[in-house]
C-alpha cells in the first residue's frame, strides 16, 4: 500500500470515528506543522496555538478532502490559511520584526529554550540555539515574505504552487523571494551576527 493509499484509508477511518486513525494522521504531520508555526510565529506558544488550529480545521473539513491530491498538500493549504488568519488577528506575534524586538533578547524564547541546559546534551543545546537564530532571522521579514521563504525553503513548494496559494503571479513570488534573500543576507552581515 502506497503512502497516498495509506493516508486515504486513515482519512476514511477517521471520518468513521476511529480514534487511532486520526491520531496516526496527527502524529505524521504534527512535527512539520509545529515547526512551520515555530518559524512563522517565532515563539512556541503561538506555534502550539497555530498547530491546534490547523488540526482543528483539518478535522472539521476532513470530509472535503479529495483523494486526487496529497494529504500533505491539502493539510498545508489549511495551515497556510490558518497562519494568515492568525497574522491578521495578532499583530504582536506573527508580524513582529527584529526592530520591534529591540530591547528584548534578539533570539526570542532563547532563554526559555535553554533553561534546562544542565539536563540537555551540548549538541542539543547548540541546535536549539541555531534554530532560535534562524527564527530570529525570519522574524525580520514581513509576514508575506516569511511565508514565501517558509514554503519554498522548508516545505519545498514550487514557485507556481506558492503563487497559486497566495493569488500572485510566479514572477511576483520570485521577485519577493529574491528580496527576502537579500534582506536575510544583509541581516547576516549586520549587527545581528547570528
Amino acid at each position, binding site marked *: 500500500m502506497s503512502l497516498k493509499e495509506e493516508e486515504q484509508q486513515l482519512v476514511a477511518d477517521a471520518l468513521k470515528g476511529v480514534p487511532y486513525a*486520526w491520531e496516526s494522521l496527527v502524529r505524521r504531520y504534527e512535527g512539520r506543522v509545529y515547526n512551520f508555526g515555530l518559524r512563522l510565529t517565532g515563539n512556541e506558544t503561538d506555534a502550539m496555538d497555530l498547530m*491546534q488550529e490547523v488540526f482543528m480545521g483539518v478535522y472539521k473539513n476532513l470530509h472535503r478532502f479529495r483523494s486526487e491530491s496529497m494529504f500533505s498538500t491539502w493539510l498545508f493549504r489549511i495551515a497556510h490559511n490558518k497562519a494568515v488568519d492568525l497574522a491578521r488577528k495578532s499583530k504582536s506575534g506573527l508580524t513582529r520584526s527584529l526592530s520591534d524586538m529591540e530591547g528584548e533578547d534578539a533570539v526570542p524564547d532563547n532563554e526559555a529554550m535553554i533553561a534546562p541546559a544542565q539536563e540537555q546534551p551540548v549538541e542539543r543545546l547548540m541546535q536549539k540555539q541555531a534554530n532560535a537564530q534562524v527564527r530570529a532571522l525570519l522574524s525580520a521579514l514581513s509576514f508575506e515574505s516569511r511565508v514565501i521563504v517558509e514554503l519554498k525553503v522548508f516545505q519545498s513548494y514550487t514557485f507556481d504552487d506558492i503563487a497559486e496559494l497566495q493569488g500572485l503571479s510566479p514572477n511576483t513570488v*520570485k521577485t519577493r523571494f*529574491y528580496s527576502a534573500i537579500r534582506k536575510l543576507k544583509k541581516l547576516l552581515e549586520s549587527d545581528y551576527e*547570528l
Partner: protein
Amino acid sequence: MSCERTSEIVASFFDDALAPVQRQANEAHVSSCAHCRVQLADARLVQARLASYKEEAVPNWSRSAVLAKEKPKTNWRDWLGAWQWAPLACSFLLALGVVFNVEISSSDSGFVVAFGQSSGVSQQELDQRIQKLSASLERQQGDVQLQMLETVVENVMRQYDENSSRNLEQVIEYFDLQRQQDLQLLQSSYQQLADSDYETIRSVQQLASYVQYQGLE
C-alpha cells in the same frame, strides 16, 4: 551594477525541480554576469544558514482534544448510505398528515395545503366558481358545435357533384315559386276580406238610411 535576470537566477537556485537544460542556461549566464554571481553566492550563504534549522520536537499535547471539540461532517456518500431511514421517514410524514388532517387541493393558482378542517370557501364563492365554469363549458361546447356544423356542410358539399348542385338550385327555385304562390293567395284573401267589409259597411249605411227614413215619417 544590476541584472534583470537576478531574481530568476536566485529563485532557480532554490528550485530543485529545475530542468537540466534550464540549469545549464542559468550557469552559463552566471559565469558571464558578475552581479548574478555575487547574488547567488549570498543566496548560498543564506540557504546554508536556513538549512541549519532542525525540526524541534512537539511538546506534549492532547491529540484527541480536537475530537472532543469538533465532529467531522459526513460526506455525501455517507449521507446516501442512510437511505434505509427513508421508508420510516415517509411513514412518519404520512402519520403526521393523518393526525393533522392535512388536505392538499389544486386550484387555478396552484396547490393549496390546508390543516384541520377543510378550507373556508363559502357556498356563494363555490356557486360563483361553478357558474364561471359552466359558462366557460358552454362557450367551449358552442364553439365545438359550430365547428362540427361547418365540417358537416363542407363534407356534404364535397360529396355532392355538379348535378346535385343543379338539383339543389331547382329545389330552391321550387321553394321560391311556392312562396310567391303563398303570397298571392294571402293577397287574394285580404282582398276578399276587404270586399266583404265594404259590403258590410254598405249594408250598415242602408240600414241607417232606412232607420232615418222611418223616423222622419
